[in-house]
């Protein structure tokens, strides 16, 4: 990955994979409403993909300075295996942890690169993922931890 194009293509591909992951999982689970929820997640990932595509066409990414809130909701939760017996709490944990992993990936990539333009790009992508993670964390805080 040496050019901005390539990096963006990689990121777009990752979003597509994530969307596919949720679609596949939705096929497997036995609860119809969970299926719907996972399909919703998948649509969310497709939206992210669309966002990156427009970045490729020249739209600005989030600036690295902009601080994305980290609620740290997912940090101490146990890892959850995506199986067909998922419930909605698990599904959200899976989603949060996937976004967190993506955020770490881009942050690591940014740390290991010297080209300032590339660095900026990776950090911007990391910011995007942090935003996605926040989206799911807020869902978790609002729904799962509603009475807590």
């Amino acid at each position, binding site marked *: 990955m040496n050019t901005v194009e390539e990096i963006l293509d990689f990121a777009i591909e990752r979003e597509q994979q994530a969307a596919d992951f949720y679609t596949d999982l939705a096929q497997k689970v036995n609860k119809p409403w969970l299926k*719907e929820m996972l399909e919703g997640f998948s649509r969310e990932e497709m939206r992210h993909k669309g966002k990156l595509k427009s970045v490729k066409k020249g739209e600005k990414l989030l600036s690295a300075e902009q601080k994305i809130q980290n609620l740290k909701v997912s940090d*101490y939760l146990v890892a959850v295996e995506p199986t067909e017996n998922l*419930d*909605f709490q698990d599904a959200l944990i899976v989603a949060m942890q996937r976004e967190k992993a993506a955020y770490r990936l881009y942050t690591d990539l940014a740390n290991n690169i010297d080209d300032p333009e590339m660095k900026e790009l990776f950090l911007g992508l990391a910011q995007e993922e942090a935003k996605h993670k926040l989206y799911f964390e807020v869902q978790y*805080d609002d729904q799962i*931890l509603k009475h*807590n």
Partner: protein
Amino acid sequence: MSLKDLISPFYVWQRAFQKPYTQKRPIEERPGAPRYRGFHINLTEECVGCGSCEAICQNHAIDMVKVEGLEPRNGDSGLRPKFDYGRCCWCALCVDICTARSLRLSNHYAWVTEDPDAFHFIAGTDAMPWNQNSLGYRRDDDYHLLTHDRIEMDALSPEESLKGFDEVMKGYTEEQALLEADRCVECGICVATCPAHMSVPDYIKAVRNKDWEGGLKLLYETNPFSTTCGRICTHRCETDCVLGLQGTPIAIRWLKRAIADRVPAERYAEILNDTFTENGKKVAIVGAGPGGMSAAYYLRKQGYGVTVFEAQAHGGGMLRYGVPSYRLPENQLDKDIDYIRSLGVDVRFNTRVGQDVPFSELMDNHDAIFIATGLSSPMKLRIDGEEHPRVVSGLKILDDVAKGQDPGVGKRVAVIGGGNVAMDAARVSRRVGADVTVLYRRRIEDMPADPEEIHESKAEGCHLVPQAIPVKIKDADDPNQVVIVWGEAEMVSDAKGGRPRPVLQEDRMHEETYDTIVSAIGQGGDYDFMGECLGSIEQKWGKFIPGAYQQTGVSKIFVGGDIANSTADAISAVEDGHHAARGIHRFLSEEGLQ
């Protein structure tokens, strides 16, 4: 006639040289006194449209009217007073009675306009020349036409209450009930807020008239769990009660209890006089909690044959197994349930649908089904070590106690959570002799538990630790103990204006050892028994999303209670049951509902 009598009248000249008394209006304006009763001003933002001004006005000069751009919401009727200056006598009783203290008079003396319609205006909303006047008549701080303080209810002292499971709140005496009922202004804003839309002002009036029988009839129009709700209702009505704007809201819940407690169970049948003829149709209800039993009551009154399937040995659901008897004694819950059963509702206890009887049998043998199974599966923390044997759920403890078993929590207990189950688990643990710490991730004011529960837990010696987020559970040195790791949290404001969210501060972690950790962070539902029907029923976040009249995608299945509403309290379940009963009746009768 003396000379003096002739001369002294000429003394009048002395005053001829004094400055004249008269003022040259309008060149010299004389402002009204600071307390002058001039023209009306209403602080529209503070006004909640209770209409007490309209009620007290002896000239009928005030009409409560809809205001453009102001929508009714809970706690605000959306109406504002419109004044007719062809009738007003500026007595300012409207100002004195104003529950929000939003109404006042300016010290404006005169108002001249050529448009006669202008004298009929909505104060505060219509632009009036005196709207910015800062002076004028206000109610004096020490003068009241309303009693702003609630009549306190006698309660067991914390020392007494800790000794056992006796009911803590003793109930109003007749005198107390009458005094408390007298405070009501009958605005009815509570009726809109109450999930069951109980006729609150009417039954409070029945209390004032000591008409306990009439009161009971009113209660049963919308709520067959009045004895119960009179004790443990979440009383949203009181949050919106206009008396709370300047003092404490009316104790609506306690007044409901005052009525129900004064009518002995033996007289219910005679007073309520629920007569009906069998209509031959059959309805199955799953769950004998407040939702299921309310539906059973209202369906039975329409003549339906009702069978309730209950997995437990007694009715009441979460009211029995989730609410300890110091808040709701079992015999009081039984009073409500037994009356419903006495109408011929067949309750099959110890019968779990999907296990003891297949769901398909319900589907095949009944014209409609109402499902109100409640949320009985404790939610998981999903942190490391949660499977430790010394970690138990709050519901388990309450269930043990309800069944007369020792919950075995030991001497040091940590409760995680801030809802009523958490508070009750804590208070029950106190009663069996434990030191209790409650860890809650947000602030005390964010706790979903009733304020009374929080207050009483504190009084009984539970140690509440807010902004504490558990992150890990570990083995302790002693195998009968357990270690919890938790971190302090800072609250950050929500970008969209929701409640603030806690963020863990990793530099401020704590480790404590306990005999038991009670996890009480909420419950989920278990719907597997419904089998493939589930596919046609809309759900979100683990709850059903019913359509009109609680009906689901499977047209003969209706759902309600905790599994189908966001508030998950008894009164909402009662309303769901009542609503579903109406829906089922429409569905099964000519009135239609597909």
